[in-house]
């Protein structure tokens, strides 16, 4: 397959607009630099039952509220570390039962499921206006949903992740460390449990001062930073009956007086990130943004691994799972082979090389228009020695969109300087009309 990725030709000057207009970031196309050189990453870790559009909107809401630079002028970029909630399937089965009530009048109308999760909204309101007998059904359904949220959240609390158990997330943190970035974690709901593990790992990589976390709607007493919790967050209230939770920090209006939030909906459970905690009509959102901004502005530069690697138009990060010498080889469009014996290419650089164990190795393609060549970059691996049976993780990322792909390879016998596995063919091209640089890979 061939996936096409477009990039703006340069983004040095970002115009940030939020109030009263559409949101936009625009670029200074006259520059030779294709990338923003971010030194701070704000990483969002989503809560229970978060769909992809809501995860993206959460990241976007943080971006809009906190901006693209720190007080001291450092560039910020935003990323998402996604976790899935088991139990989505159960929601479908139970919702089908609810739809079958009252003679099955609403049977098959699954469009009402997602709409219902944030409380009453347009379609449900019409149904409840016309068929008052559905009030009970709606109530029972939301009760079930709340119970499921609590159950899933409580299960994680009882058995929290002690390490960063997502390989891609761990390699991403490795990459931030390599590039000398400070890290601001913002976690909501069950994302807090993953955030604690990510925080500890990031601290081990870049030091305490370079990592902060803000917990939103945490249910665990274990926190590593400031937290924000609404007094009428019914999910956390319910969890408080089974164990200690942090104290609430802010009050929110009762449900019937609650204004619509980021999705223009209301959350009856008082727990949603977009409708409650990032609802700019509620004071709690100001409190949250203040804490995040204070955290961002207090971040120190990493005191370990600082500046070992550069960000690039695209980067390749290689790690592996034990001892042995594994090598990353990049064949650039000019024909130049970039590897441990010849690290400087025509378009990029192998700026981190490891010869003993685990990695990382890191190649970047230049953000400078005058250096980045159009054409194919073949990314290959070799087991130089002692790595037979080791599994390598190779992550392809772009400067703004983060991870594009993660692939794995298990090595056979050593082949010295000769690569034995092709991992990516990355193609850089430029649109003749728009002058946009594009990235595709196979």
């Amino acid at each position, binding site marked *: *397959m061939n*996936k096409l990725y*477009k990039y*703006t030709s340069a*983004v040095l000057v970002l115009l940030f607009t939020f*109030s*009263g*207009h*559409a*949101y*936009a*970031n*625009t670029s200074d196309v006259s520059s030779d630099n294709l990338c923003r050189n971010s030194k701070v990453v704000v*990483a969002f870790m989503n809560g229970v039952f978060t*769909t*992809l*559009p809501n995860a*993206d909107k959460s*990241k*976007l809401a943080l971006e809009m509220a906190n901006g693209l630079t720190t007080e001291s002028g450092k560039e910020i970029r*935003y*990323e*998402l570390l*996604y*976790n*899935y909630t088991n139990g*989505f*399937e159960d929601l*479908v089965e139970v919702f*089908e039962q609810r739809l079958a009530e*009252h*003679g*099955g*009048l609403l*049977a*098959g109308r*699954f*469009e009402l*499921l*997602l*709409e219902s999760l944030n409380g009453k*909204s347009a*379609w449900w309101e*019409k*149904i409840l206006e*016309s*068929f008052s007998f559905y009030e009970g059904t709606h109530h029972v359904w939301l009760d079930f949903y709340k119970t499921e949220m609590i159950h899933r959240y409580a299960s994680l609390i009882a058995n929290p992740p002690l390490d960063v*158990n997502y390989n*891609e*997330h761990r390699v991403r943190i490795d990459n931030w460390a390599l590039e000398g970035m400070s890290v601001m974690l913002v976690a909501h709901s069950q994302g807090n449990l993953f955030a604690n593990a990510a925080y500890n790992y990031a601290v081990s990589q870049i030091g305490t001062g370079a990592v902060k976390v803000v917990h939103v709607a945490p249910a665990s007493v274990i926190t590593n930073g400031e937290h924000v919790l609404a007094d009428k967050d019914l999910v956390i209230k319910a969890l408080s009956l089974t164990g200690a939770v942090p104290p609430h920090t802010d009050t929110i209006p009762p449900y019937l007086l609650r204004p619509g939030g980021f*999705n*223009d*909906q209301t959350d009856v459970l008082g727990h949603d990130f*977009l409708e409650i905690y990032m609802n700019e009509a509620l004071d709690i959102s100001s409190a949250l943004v203040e804490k995040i901004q204070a955290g961002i502005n207090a971040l120190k530069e990493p005191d370990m691994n600082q500046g070992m690697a550069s960000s690039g138009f695209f980067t390749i990060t290689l790690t592996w799972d034990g001892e042995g010498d594994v090598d990353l080889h990049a064949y650039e469009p000019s024909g130049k082979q970039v590897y441990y014996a010849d690290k400087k290419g025509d378009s990029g650089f192998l700026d981190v090389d490891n010869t003993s164990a685990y990695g990382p190795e890191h190649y970047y393609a230049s953000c400078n228009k005058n250096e980045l060549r159009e054409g194919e970059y073949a990314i290959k691996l070799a087991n130089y020695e002692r790595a037979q049976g080791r599994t390598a993780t190779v992550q392809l990322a772009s400067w*703004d*969109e*983060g*991870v594009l*792909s*993660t692939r794995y390879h298990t090595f056979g016998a050593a082949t010295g300087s000769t690569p034995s596995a092709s991992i990516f063919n990355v193609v850089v091209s430029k649109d003749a009309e728009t002058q946009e640089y594009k990235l595709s890979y196979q």
Partner: protein
Amino acid sequence: MNKTFCLMLAMLLAGCDSGGNTGFTYPTEDSQESIQTESPLPNQPSQDLSPAEKLAALEAEKKLPKLDRNYELAGVDEDNNGIRDDIDAYIQENYSDPKQRAAAAQFARSMQSIILADPEDMDQVRAARRASTRATYCLYRTFDLKIGVQPGNVSSTIEAMTTNTKQRIKAYFRFHKSLDGTSWGSPEGDTCE
């Protein structure tokens, strides 16, 4: 526009066709049986309508969406533009500004690609994820944040319409399971197609 009310038999899932026919056959999702809808009853006072008739009236008045409930995952896309025809029609009718209409269509196309992605194929999953992210950013770039319909509302509505059958919403959730443990950034610049 056909203002005629369509009458639904309880539980089903129907709509008025564009040609103004008074009844049609539609397969049910589970049994694949065909149910014949009855002729509409125009101008009937709402208090005299049965629940099924009132529901059909809400659809006809566009207070509830009239959706393709075909048991096929993809649904009907006659013009092959990557958007289900019922959602396409909704977008055409509700967004008159060409840029907003294009942005809504881009988002709808991305939602459909998620439904149809093979959850075992991570390249497909990542491509669909990325298309969705770019489409979401395009909505916020195109719709005003203070005036008129909110971009968050546009995406929530199209997301719900795309996942309107059991099969489709299950596919949607399977896709999300494949996203577990992945990460991504924020596209900068113009992400509209």
